C-alpha cells in the first residue's frame, strides 16, 4: 500500500525562487534528504531535499518555473504506510529535536500556502514576532557583547545561546527565551548592553500541539518538507544529560514554601530554574539541594578561576609574574571563548586523572588500499562522499570497545562503581579557528562506513562554523584525537573525563617490516592510547591497543 505525498518547497527564506535544475526523474527512487530540485534565489542556489524515502511518481515543476514556499514540487510514493509514518516522523521531529521545544519551521507554509492548509495540524495557530531582551544578568552595569552566536534565519531552541556577553567577572551566554527563528539581530560584537536591551527579533509560532501527526494512512496526504538547518534525524534515544532547568517555564511563579525559598536564597539559587518534584510540582528543599549539587558539579566557565591558586586541594605556588615587555615587544590577545571553557576542564582532567599512554603501530597498508579503491569507485558513481581513514579508525575503535567494555565506562561519583555503557558514541576532537571542540558521533557500532563519513563531514562543517549545539558534544564514550593530517610520530592526549580513555592518532609512514623472510614496505599508523589508570590496567590497555591495531591491519575483522 503506497501513499502518495506531495512534496512542497520548504521555507527558502525569501520570495519566489527559480527552478534551475531537476535532480530526479519520474520513477527514480530517492532516499530521505536526497536532492529533488535545485532552486536559485537572488542570493544563492540551494537543493531541495526529499522529506522521505520513496519513488517519484510525478514532477510538477519544470526548469525555469518560479516556485514559492509551499509550491508542490513532486509527488512521492512512499512504500508502505509504516514507512510513511517513519518518513513523516522525522519531518515532525527534524526541526525540533526536543519535542517540548518545537521550532518554527513547520508552521511557516501555513501563512503563505492557504491551499495546503489541511496539511497542517489545525492547532498551529500562528506566528508571532517577539523581542528578545537581555535578562537579569546579575549586574546593572553595561556589559560587552563579545560574540553574536546566531544569524538571521537560524533556528534556535529555548535556552540556546544567542549572544555572549562579558562582565568584569565572567562571560556568559544569553539564552533564547523561546524556540523560534531569528528574524533580525539588533546587537553586534562590541556593543554594550544591559538588562532590558533588545538583542534580536525572534519569530515564534504557537505550536503547542504540533506533535499531532499529519495523517499518514490517507492517500493523497500532503506533506511538506521543512528543511531544518540543523542535523536531520538526531537520534532521539541518545542520552543527553539531564539539566534541572530544562523543564522550567519562565511564566510560572515560584511554587514553594518559605523555608525552601530561604534555602534557595542562601545558595543564590534562581528558583525559576529549579524543577519541583513535590505534589503539583512544588519545589521541595531536596530539589534546591539537587540543583545546587548539579550546578557545583559543572565546570566554571572562567579559565581564571582555576589557573591560579591551585584548586582541587593542590598545594601549588602561584605562577611568577613576568613582565614580558622587558624582553621585547608583546601584544595581549584574549583567550577564545572555547579556550576559556575547555581550559579548566583540561586542567582538571590532567591533574586528577592518573594518565598512562600506550603506544602502538597499526599496519594500515591494506585498509588504505581498500579505501582508495572505494573512493575511486565512488567517484565514478558520483557519490557525494569520500571515505577518510578516520572512519575506519572509528569503526575499529567501536569494535574494540565492544571487546573491552571497561574502556566504555566512567567512574561513578561514589568512587566505588563503574558506569558501564551499552552504547558506543565516539567523540572526535576537531580543530577549529576558535579552538578545540569535540562533537560526538552516536552509535558508531551500528552505522556503516558511508553513513559515518557523511555524518563526520556534517559535524566537522558545523564545528568549523561554530554551529555545534551542546547536545552535539555530549554523551561521548571515548574520544579520538587525530593529528595524522599534520604530522608527528606520537603524543600523549589528555583523557576527556568522564571518559576513561582517548585515542591519539599520528601521521602514518611507510616503514620496513620483517615478514619472516624479508623486509616489506608497510604503511604504519602510530596510535597513542591514553587511559585512566584507576580504571584500566596497563596489561589491558596493551591488549586493547593490539586488538585495535589488529582490526586496522585487517578490516575483515570488523565483521567477525
Amino acid at each position, binding site marked *: 500500500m503506497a501513499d502518495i505525498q506531495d512534496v512542497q518547497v520548504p521555507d527558502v527564506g525569501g520570495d519566489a525562487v527559480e527552478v534551475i535544475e531537476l535532480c530526479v526523474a519520474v520513477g527514480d527512487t530517492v532516499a530521505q534528504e536526497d536532492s529533488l530540485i535545485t532552486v536559485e534565489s537572488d542570493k544563492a542556489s540551494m537543493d531541495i531535499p526529499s522529506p522521505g524515502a520513496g519513488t517519484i511518481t510525478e514532477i510538477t515543476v519544470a526548469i525555469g518555473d518560479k516556485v514559492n514556499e509551499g509550491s508542490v514540487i513532486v509527488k512521492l510514493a512512499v512504500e508502505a504506510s509504516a514507512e510513511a509514518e517513519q518518513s513523516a516522523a522525522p519531518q515532525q521531529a527534524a526541526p525540533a529535536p526536543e519535542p517540548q521545544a518545537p521550532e518554527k519551521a513547520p508552521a511557516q507554509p501555513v501563512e503563505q500556502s492557504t491551499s495546503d492548509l489541511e496539511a497542517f495540524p489545525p492547532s498551529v495557530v500562528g506566528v508571532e514576532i517577539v523581542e528578545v531582551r537581555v535578562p537579569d544578568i546579575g549586574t546593572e552595569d553595561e556589559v560587552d557583547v563579545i560574540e553574536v552566536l546566531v544569524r538571521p534565519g537560524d533556528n534556535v531552541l529555548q535556552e540556546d545561546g544567542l549572544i555572549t556577553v562579558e562582565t568584569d567577572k565572567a562571560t556568559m551566554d544569553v539564552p533564547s527565551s523561546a524556540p523560534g527563528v531569528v528574524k533580525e539581530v539588533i546587537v553586534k560584537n562590541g556593543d554594550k548592553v544591559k538588562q532590558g536591551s533588545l538583542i534580536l527579533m525572534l519569530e515564534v509560532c504557537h505550536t503547542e500541539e504540533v506533535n499531532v501527526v499529519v495523517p499518514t494512512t490517507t492517500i493523497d496526504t500532503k506533506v511538506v518538507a521543512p528543511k531544518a538547518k540543523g542535523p536531520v534525524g538526531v537520534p532521539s534515544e541518545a542520552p543527553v544529560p539531564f539539566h534541572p532547568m530544562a523543564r522550567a517555564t519562565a511564566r510560572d511563579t515560584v511554587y514553594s514554601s518559605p523555608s525552601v525559598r530561604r534555602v534557595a536564597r*542562601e545558595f543564590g539559587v534562581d528558583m525559576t530554574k529549579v524543577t519541583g518534584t513535590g505534589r503539583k510540582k512544588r519545589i521541595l528543599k531536596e530539589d534546591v539541594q539537587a540543583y545546587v549539587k548539579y550546578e557545583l558539579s559543572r565546570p566554571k566557565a572562567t579559565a581564571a578561576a582555576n589557573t591560579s591558586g591551585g584548586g582541587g586541594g593542590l598545594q601549588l605556588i602561584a605562577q611568577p609574574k613576568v613582565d614580558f615587555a622587558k624582553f621585547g615587544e608583546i601584544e595581549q590577545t584574549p583567550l577564545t571563548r572555547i579556550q576559556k571553557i575547555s581550559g579548566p576542564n583540561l586542567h582538571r582532567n590532567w591533574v586528577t586523572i592518573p594518565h598512562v599512554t600506550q603506544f602502538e603501530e597499526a599496519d594500515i597498508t591494506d585498509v588504505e588500499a581498500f579505501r582508495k579503491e572505494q573512493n575511486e569507485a565512488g567517484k565514478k558513481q558520483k557519490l557525494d562522499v569520500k571515505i577518510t581513514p578516520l572512519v575506519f579508525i572509528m569503526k575499529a575503535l567501536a569494535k574494540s570497545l565492544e571487546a573491552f567494555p571497561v574502556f566504555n565506562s566512567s567512574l561513578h561519583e561514589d568512587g566505588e562503581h563503574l558506569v558501564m555503557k551499552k552504547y558506543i558514541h565516539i567523540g572526535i576532537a576537531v580543530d577549529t579557528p576558535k579552538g578545540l571542540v569535540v562533537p560526538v558521533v552516536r552509535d558508531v557500532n551500528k552505522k556503516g562506513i558511508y553513513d559515518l563519513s557523511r555524518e563526520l563531514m556534517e559535524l566537522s562543517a558545523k564545528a568549523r562554523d561554530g554551529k555545534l549545539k551542546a547536545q552535539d558534544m555530549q554523551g561521548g564514550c571515548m574520544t579520538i584525537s587525530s593529528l595524522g593530517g599534520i604530522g608527528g610520530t606520537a603524543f600523549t592526549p589528555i583523557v576527556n573525563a568522564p571518559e576513561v580513555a582517548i585515542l591519539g592518532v599520528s601521521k602514518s609512514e611507510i616503514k620496513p617490516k620483517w615478514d619472516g623472510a624479508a623486509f616489506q614496505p608497510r604503511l604504519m599508523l602510530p596510535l597513542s592510547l591514553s587511559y585512566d589508570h584507576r580504571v584500566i590496567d596497563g596489561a589491558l590497555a596493551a591488549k586493547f591497543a593490539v586488538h585495535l591495531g589488529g582490526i586496522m591491519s585487517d578490516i575483515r575483522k570488523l565483521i567477525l
Partner: protein
Amino acid sequence: MSDIKTQVVVLGAGPGGYSAAFRAADLGLDVVLVESRATLGGVCLNVGCIPSKALLHVAKVIDDAKAMASHGVTFGEPQIDLDKIRGWKESVVNQLTGGLTGMAKARKVTTVNGYGKFTGSNTIAVEGADGTTTITFDQAIVAAGSEPVSLPFIPEDPRIFDSTGALELADVPGEMLVLGGGIIGLEMGTVYSALGSNVSVVEFLDQLVPAADKDVVRVYNTFNKKRFNIMLSTKVVAVEAKEDGLYVTFEGKKAPAEPVRYDKILVAVGRTPNGKKVDAEKAGVTVTDRGFIEVDSQLRTNVNHIFAIGDVVGQPMLAHKAVHEAHVAAEVISGMKHFFDPKCIPSIAYTDPEIAWVGLTEREAKEQGLNFEVAKFPWAASGRAIASARTEGMTKMIFDKDNGRVIGGAIVGINAGEMLGEIGLAIEMGADAEDIGLTIHAHPTLNESIGLACEVFEGSITDLPNAKAKKKK
C-alpha cells in the same frame, strides 16, 4: 557621661527593635538597645496595638451584653469607672513591657534610656536623664518607628488628640469626631462609642479602611450604620476651638452645611516615619524626603554596616512586619545569608466586626491584570455565625484561575483576625483551592467558612446553591 562599645546597637525598642536586639543576642552578639521611652515595647505595646485591644475588649463585652437583651437576657446599664478601665489597660501594658525588660536582662542585652542619634558612621549619642552616653558600634539597626501625622490647619488644643491621647481615656466626650476612617480611627471610635460617645467619622476617600476591598468594607458599614455617623468623600477644612466646643467646617459629598460642634476630635490620618529624627545622614545613611530609610531585601541601608527595619523602612507600618524584618537583619549581621522574602503580610482592623485581609485584594488583582477568580462564603449560611447572632460576616477568597492557587483572602466578621492565619499560610505554601477545600475544617466553626469558600471556587459546595453544579436538561 559614659562610653559603651558594642558589636550591635539597635535604635528603638518597639516590636522591631527588641526583636532585632534579642535575636542578635541569641546569635551570640553583644547588643545595646536604645529606647527613648521608660519602658520597652515601643508604640505597639505602650500606646498602640496592645492598649487599644484592652479597651476594645471592654467595648466588646459592653456591646455583647447589650445585644443579649434580644435573646432573652437583659443586663442593667453598665456602670463605667474610667479610672479602673484605665488601670486595667495599664496593667496589661505593664505586664508585657515588664516581661520584655526581664527578657532583655536574661539575654544580657544592655538597654540605654534616652533619644539616640547618630554622630558618625560608627557612633551614636544617647541623650538621657543621666547625661549623654556615647555608643561605638560595629553594626547598627535603626528601628526608630513612626508617629501620628498631625494636620497643619488643626489648632493646638487639649480637646484634640491623636491615638496616644485617645488611649489615655481622660473622659467620655458626648460628641466626638474621628478624623480619618482607617484602622486606628475606627478602633478608637468603637471604644468611645461603646463607652457612650456619639461618634462621627470623616474620611476623605470614598471608603472606610481604603486598603481593603469595597465589598468587604460594605459589610462593616451596614453593620455600623447606627454606631457611627459616617461621612465619606468629605474633608475637614477648618477647626475653630471655642470655649463650648470645637467647631468643625467640612467640605465634600456628605459635608453638613454649617460648622458642627464636637467635644473632642481624634486625628487619625496616618503615621509618618521617624527617619529624619535620628541624624542618620551623619552616618551616611540616605533618608528620603518623607522620612523613610531605604533598604535592600536584607534590610541593609546604603551604608553597609547599618540596617533599618519596621515602620521607618516603609509600608505597611505593622508590628508583625517589623518583627520579621528584625530577625532577618539580626541574622544577616550574624553572618547568615537570609532575606526578607514574604509573599504576603496580613492586615487586621480590630473593629466590630473585624476586617482582616492578606495577600492580594480583588482590586490589586484587577490592577495587576491577573487571571483570577473570587469565591465568597456569606456567613448567613454558617451555623456558628447564626448561633452567635452575627451573620453579617463574609469570607472571601481570591484564586489564580490558571492553577487554583490562593493569592489573597479577606474576612469580615467577628474573630476574623484570628482566622486569617490559615489564608496567609496557604499563600506562603502555594496551596490551592483544592488543598484547602480537602482539609477538614471543624464544624461548626467560623473558620470552616474558609474551606467552604474554596469549595465554592471548586464547585463542590453543598452548604450554598452551587453555581458550578451540572445543569440538568
